[in-house]
């Protein structure tokens, strides 16, 4: 069938020395079991698997030890029976040399298999019947099969092609990289499984035909595959195509171009043009998974290089340490030890030999210094253009080099950096030995990092905006609630008001004289209270904003709000004061009571007490500020001093008042004073009134009467005190004397004002 396929060619490519014959001289040997297996959880592209075993667990060969995490991921199976001795971070076989979570299994050497069965047996279908597609893909997924060519993309994900119809399946047996012969040996020794795998894949994809592309430097493999195709009677579906040897014809995109002439679009996948490409080893693994239920636990790995005496391929269990494999291959340690995982073109130097073989390890190359000399220092680019000729992806390696070197990443991206397959052909041909691929890898990584950062920034921006929106919404809700509450309060207030308004006449008159404040005053007082709480809240907010940098910008707004509230409070206080004054004036105008006078001893005392209280709080605040080391300490100190002065003043005023009240300072007397504020108040106001010379006789008459009342009361008090044997007796006596003096004065005044209207008949 081969002659019917028209081959195409891709541009560029190189012909490095193949060095493949060294490792194909002997058949594949099964590597002996090492002491322990180290299984990194991230052997594939995608998310690392999640371990489902614990340290100390006994595991059987083929048992699942880690489940896939998400869609693009693959499970991991125990390659042999044994005990899980550790689940810990160990250095992983990756070019980064970073540590990753690994499951370590100590082999018991029994190789006891976990129960497994073919998909036919599981589904109760006769062998040879058509299998449901989903069942095939699911089995492939559960078997942990990933691409065995080198990248390690989960195969089940590749088979989930969605809406796209797949016409062609391509099995990649080109294996173009020097030294590596693992696929060659798979094709030679497991050709039947490969063809069987191709059959299964055709079923799973619903594809019509399969092309197995093999380079013409592997005649044995081609012959074996052709025999297998014939023995399976698949000549009409499966073609073994011999392609010319050229590096990198084994690249997925290159092989597709050679076999079909189609190019995978930039940034696309082969499925976009109706093609799925799989490695031949993967196909064999799929046949195993479906027909026997054996998961992917081992692979063929080439161990080659001049430092190895027994060059050849090994059937290696995953997790086998590289050092173990080198030991059994007769590795002679070199002066400058260098073991490369992968081929000489695309592989990477292992940071340590204790690292394990993983699903993507197709080759271990241990060259001598002579065989593969270290890179010479790179020289300046001479713009020869050989790299552009060699590039299989039709890129401009020279331009990309300049951009990567100058970190002009956007320009590198514009020059299709991401179409670079990192094959290394450009570096290989470069006469100046510039490590071009390393530049591209760096530039790709830097661009990806930048993209990730931008994505994260975008996410952060969205979250920030959502947060702001939420805060605004909450604020609006609060405001609405507050308004509703205020409205309700106003309504109830007006309802209340309406009621007293009807009885205004009887209540209005005593309002002035009674202790209860008038409705206006009450309203103002309420407003003041509200404003004060608002002030408090604003202060709190301001403090929070000051301590919080994020809200720093709101500080001025809060401060403005604060001053506004303060102003409001001030005006309210003023209004209240004015109202009170008016009331007081009214009250003092009313002869019955004149308690508005601010200079009564008990008022003074209250003032003093309040001042004292304020002083105490000020002291407390100062102490707090000092403890917190705030810079308001000085301000608080001056405030404290002022407060102290105020307290002293208040006290002095009080003492003076008390003295003026002639010994009413005794506790007994004080209590009485409190009990009878009215009389005290009268007395206090009467005093200045009495001393007033302008008072006329009409005024004096009631005063004299009042004075007489007072004297009576004082006498009573004195008597009571005498009866109780209190210490206040002399003080009261003195007070009585004074009162009598005053009466005498008043009478004298009345007499002197020459108005004989009244004749006091009391002495």
């Amino acid at each position: 069938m081969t002659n019917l396929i028209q081959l195409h060619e891709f541009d560029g490519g190189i012909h490095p020395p193949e060095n493949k014959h060294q490792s194909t001289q002997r058949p594949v040997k099964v590597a002996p079991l090492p002491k322990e297996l180290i299984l990194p959880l991230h052997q594939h592209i995608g998310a690392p698997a999640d371990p489902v075993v614990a340290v100390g667990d006994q595991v059987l060969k083929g048992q699942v030890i880690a489940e896939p995490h998400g869609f693009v991921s693959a499970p991991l199976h125990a390659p042999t029976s044994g005990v899980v001795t550790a689940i810990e971070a160990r250095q992983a076989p990756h070019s980064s040399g970073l540590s990753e979570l690994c499951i370590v299994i100590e082999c018991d050497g029994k190789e006891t298999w976990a129960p497994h069965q073919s998909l036919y047996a599981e589904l109760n279908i006769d062998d040879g019947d058509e299998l449901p597609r989903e069942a095939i893909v699911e089995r492939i997924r559960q078997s942990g099969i990933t691409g065995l060519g080198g990248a390690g993309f989960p195969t089940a994900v590749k088979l989930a092609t969605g809406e796209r119809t797949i016409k062609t399946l391509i099995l990649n047996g080109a294996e173009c990289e020097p030294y590596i012969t693992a696929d060659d040996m798979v094709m030679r020794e497991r050709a039947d499984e490969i063809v069987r795998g191709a059959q299964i894949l055709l079923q799973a994809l619903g594809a019509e035909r399969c092309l197995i592309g093999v380079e013409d430097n592997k005649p044995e493999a081609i012959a074996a595959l052709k025999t297998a195709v014939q023995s399976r009677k698949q000549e009409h579906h499966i073609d073994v195509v011999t392609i010319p040897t050229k590096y990198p014809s084994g690249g997925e995109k290159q092989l597709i171009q050679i076999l079909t002439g189609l190019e995978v679009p930039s940034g696309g996948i082969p499925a976009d043009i109706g093609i799925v490409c799989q490695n031949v080893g993967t196909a064999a693994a799929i046949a195993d998974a479906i027909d026997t239920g054996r998961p992917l636990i081992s692979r063929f790995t080439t161990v080659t290089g001049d430092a190895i005496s027994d060059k050849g391929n090994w059937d290696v269990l995953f997790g086998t340490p590289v050092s173990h494999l080198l030991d059994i291959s007769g590795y002679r340690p070199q002066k400058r030890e260098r073991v490369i995982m992968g081929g000489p073109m695309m592989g990477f130097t292992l940071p340590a030999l204790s690292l394990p073989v993983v699903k993507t390890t197709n080759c271990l190359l241990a060259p001598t210094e002579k065989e593969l000399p270290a890179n010479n220092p790179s020289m300046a680019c001479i713009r020869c253009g050989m790299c552009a000729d060699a590039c299989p992806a039709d890129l401009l390696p020279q331009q990309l080099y300049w951009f990567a070197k100058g970190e002009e990443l956007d320009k590198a991206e514009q020059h299709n950096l991401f179409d670079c397959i990192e094959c290394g052909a450009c570096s290989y041909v470069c006469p100046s030995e510039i490590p071009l691929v390393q530049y591209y890898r760096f530039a790709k990584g830097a661009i990806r990092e930048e993209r990730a950062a931008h994505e994260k920034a975008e996410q952060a921006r969205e979250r920030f905006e959502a947060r702001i929106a939420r805060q605004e919404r909450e604020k609006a809700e609060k405001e609405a609630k507050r308004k509703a509450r205020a409205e309700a309060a106003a309504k109830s207030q007006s309802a209340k008001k309406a009621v007293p308004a009807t009885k205004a006449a009887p209540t209005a008159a005593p309002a002035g004289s009674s202790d209860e404040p008038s409705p206006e005053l009450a309203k103002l007082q309420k407003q003041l209270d509200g404003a004060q709480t608002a002030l408090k809240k604003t202060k709190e907010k301001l403090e929070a904003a000051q301590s919080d940098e994020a809200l720093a910008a709101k500080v001025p707004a809060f401060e403005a709000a604060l001053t506004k509230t303060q102003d409001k409070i001030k005006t309210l206080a003023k209004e209240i004061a004015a109202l009170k004054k008016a009331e007081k004036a009214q009250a003092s105008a009313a002869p019955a009571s004149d308690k508005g006078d601010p200079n009564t001893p008990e008022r003074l005392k209250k003032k003093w007490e309040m001042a004292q209280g304020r002083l105490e709080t000020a002291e407390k605040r100062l102490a707090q500020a000092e403890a917190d080391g705030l810079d308001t300490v000085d301000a608080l100190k001056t405030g404290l001093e002022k407060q102290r002065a105020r307290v002293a003043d208040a006290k002095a005023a009080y003492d003076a008042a008390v003295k003026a009240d002639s010994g009413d300072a005794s506790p007994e007397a004080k209590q009485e004073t409190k009990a009878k504020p009215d009389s005290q108040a009268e007395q206090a106001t009467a005093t200045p009134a009495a001393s007033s010379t302008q008072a006329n006789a009409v005024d004096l008459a009631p005063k004299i009467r009042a004075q007489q009342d007072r004297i009576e009361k004082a006498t009573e008090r004195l008597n009571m005190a005498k009866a109780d044997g209190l210490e206040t007796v002399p003080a009261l006596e003195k007070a009585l004397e004074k009162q009598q003096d005053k009466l005498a004065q008043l009478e004298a005044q009345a007499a002197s004002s020459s108005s004989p209207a009244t004749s006091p008949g009391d002495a």
Partner: protein
Amino acid sequence: MTTILIAVLVLTALAIAFGALLGFASVRFKVEGNPVVDQINDLLPQTQCGQCGYPGCKPYAEAIADGDKINKCPPGGESTIDALADLLGVEPEPLDAEHGAEKAVPTVAYIREDECIGCTKCIQACPVDAILGAAKQMHTVIVDECTGCDLCVEPCPVDCIDMIPVQTDRTSWYWEAPTQGVELIVTDRRARRIAKRQA
């Protein structure tokens, strides 16, 4: 005379027609908001850290659009300043040290959970809601959402929040740029080897 009249009429007609067209276009293709602000905002790192003195990246973007300096963003660093200079056609300036220094490595907040008292102060401080928790419950940082802005560190009353460098893993790791010219002579290579061994 008629020629002049025709010319004037034609020109007037054209002027009216094009005026109408322009008027229509200015209504139909009106640009909402200030596109420059959005462009600037796209370049800012969106950490919302407020180190620039504005309460978030968008306000700073607006300030830049209004003529503020472009060198006030420490999380963005040199690259952001260069990008802004490029966008706005101004000279790039060195980062203003007044607003802080560029971090050498990106960090994320980490709450030492057994020390957390559940005061929710850090939750209120976080500009991107990346801290999870409730009053008197332990809080924790959603690492993927944390921008490393440091704003939660200050309010914590028990100092249980650390800013730890972001770990490089296999997905975020990438190859270094080749160091050219440092190994031109043999002694260079030897010196590097010695330095490596000492490290």
